[in-house]
């Protein structure tokens, strides 16, 4: 039952901070709440015994991406950007749309039944060792090709970020 409590705790934390991210006025708060969400999700990974992912997640998201966000927010000096927020009816509709989507998704999941369910706590797949072997063996090509993606992103970021005349 302990894991359930952890699950509830992490979930509520994640959801709460996600909602807070949306409602907070200042972008910087949003970024911080999002970071909190990410940490909660990292907890979930741990709970799922996916340690490798948990670590990578913390490094990539909380460590890199959110820092980038923070930098940007500070760089652009966005204190209170929501000067003219969307009208309330848009928000209501958006909320309703989100709820509808949720309902749809719940409907989709309703009949789901996993075949040969395993207890996540007992599996070893989430460990670095097993994942590393698979990654460099079965998923070698995508792994290599993701370098192309990174290269593109790098060149692109430079291309867009550079200040010069065309």
């Amino acid at each position: 039952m302990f894991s359930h409590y952890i699950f509830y705790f992490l979930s509520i934390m994640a959801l709460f901070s996600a909602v807070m991210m949306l409602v907070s006025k200042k972008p910087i708060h949003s970024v911080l709440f999002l970071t909190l969400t990410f940490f909660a999700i990292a907890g979930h990974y741990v709970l799922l015994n996916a340690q490798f992912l948990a670590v990578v997640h913390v490094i990539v998201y909380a460590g890199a991406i959110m820092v980038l966000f923070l930098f940007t927010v500070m760089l652009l000096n966005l204190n209170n950007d929501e000067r003219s927020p969307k009208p309330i009816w848009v928000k209501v509709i958006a909320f309703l749309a989100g709820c509808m989507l949720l309902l749809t998704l719940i409907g989709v999941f309703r009949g789901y039944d996993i075949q040969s369910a395993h207890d996540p706590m007992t599996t070893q797949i989430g460990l670095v060792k097993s994942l590393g072997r698979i990654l460099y063996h079965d998923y070698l090509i995508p792994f290599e090709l993701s370098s192309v993606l990174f290269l593109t992103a790098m060149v692109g970021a430079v291309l867009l970020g550079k200040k010069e005349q065309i």
Partner: protein
Amino acid sequence: MTTIISITVLGVLILFLGILKKQKWLLPVILAGLVVSMALTIMDWNTFRSYNNGMLIVDNVSVAFSTVLIFSTFLIFSLAAQYYRGVQRPLDDIYGVMIFALVGAVMMTSYGNLIMLFLGIETLSIALYVLAGSHKEAITSNEATLKYFLLGSFLSGFLLFGIALIYGSTGSFDLQKISLFVASCSGTYPPMFLAGLFLLIIGLAFKIAIVPFHFWAPDVYEGTPTLLTAFMATVVKTASIVAMFRFFTHTFLGIHGVWETTIWVMAAFTILLGNLTGVYQPNLKRMLAYSSISHSGYMLLAVVAFSPMSNNALLLYTISYSIATITAFGILILIREAHGNDFFTSMNGMAKSNPLEAFCLTVAMLSLTGIPPLAGFMAKYYLFTTALEKGLVWLVIVAITGSAVSVVYYFKPIVAMYLKDPTGVQLKVETPYKIHLLFMTLMVIIIGILPFFLIGLL
């Protein structure tokens, strides 16, 4: 595999050339490299290999469409010299990103695993986000890239969700295994799987610009630098539709009935909306955007019809569409250069001042309309045949109606060029460019007259 490697190497080479400040070498190297990789691709013909546990599948379909993609890129790069004529800044980064985008596109044609599909899509998309914004001073370019990026990443979220759901219900990303799962379902599919399937379709539909996920297309096309719009309209579209098609051929052959209606409706709406909205557009670029939307609808016909013929139909269609569209963009580049805009009024009387260019554009437009004996007609004909053999009578009627409507806008440039009084501006065109345009025009005609090669291919 060799294709991807060779193109990647080419991209890296370009970046090195940029570092070495050999700007003049860029285009020749790119063109030569593309030719080489095209040759390498073609050498894979009939080998049917799969790499890395079915991660990458090289079969004739992938070879054929990869060739189309590389060829289209080649044609687009041939326009680059004219397009960037006055530009002083180094262009290696733009070219490099374009080539990496091509890698992504090629991945999308030959994936055997959803991971590869996802990586391909993202490589392509990220490259395109960059390319769309590559004209940094132009606010339209900025807007284009922002819109494309926001919508693109939003929709890739759904695509991912779809992949996750498929994974959740089938337990694998491998197309082969997924198809085994489909076969084991024997008619009743878990809703989660279906939801995943549809979200995947939606994600791809966004890239192809299919109603109602087409909204980005006109705005982004208009804002993006023209050369890159050509890339978007041809390479990206081809790659995405092939990805979708491959997905269906490999995996979901058995559940044709499930997605048929949806694709059917989307195709019909795309054709109608693309053509109807195109009617009122006052400028060529935006018109071409709507034209490309409507052509996505036609391409979907091949997917809906889904028979052994569809491969060929799609191949023929993408080739003829790509060449004609690139020709049109080639002229568009010239008009933009001379007039600073691309309104139809700028093209008035072009037939007198630039008869060759006017002729090329006319052929391109007629081909897109689907007038025999041009390539566009053969493609459309083949497509309709495929569809009618499957009994998609109403869809063909919609397509026909759409074609009829399309005459209205495809004839606008023709009318302007041939029937209006000249503006007095002469387009300055260099000879290689002219030859290139003429080459593409001849291709359009020749494919129309002698399509055996392409039709018997797959």
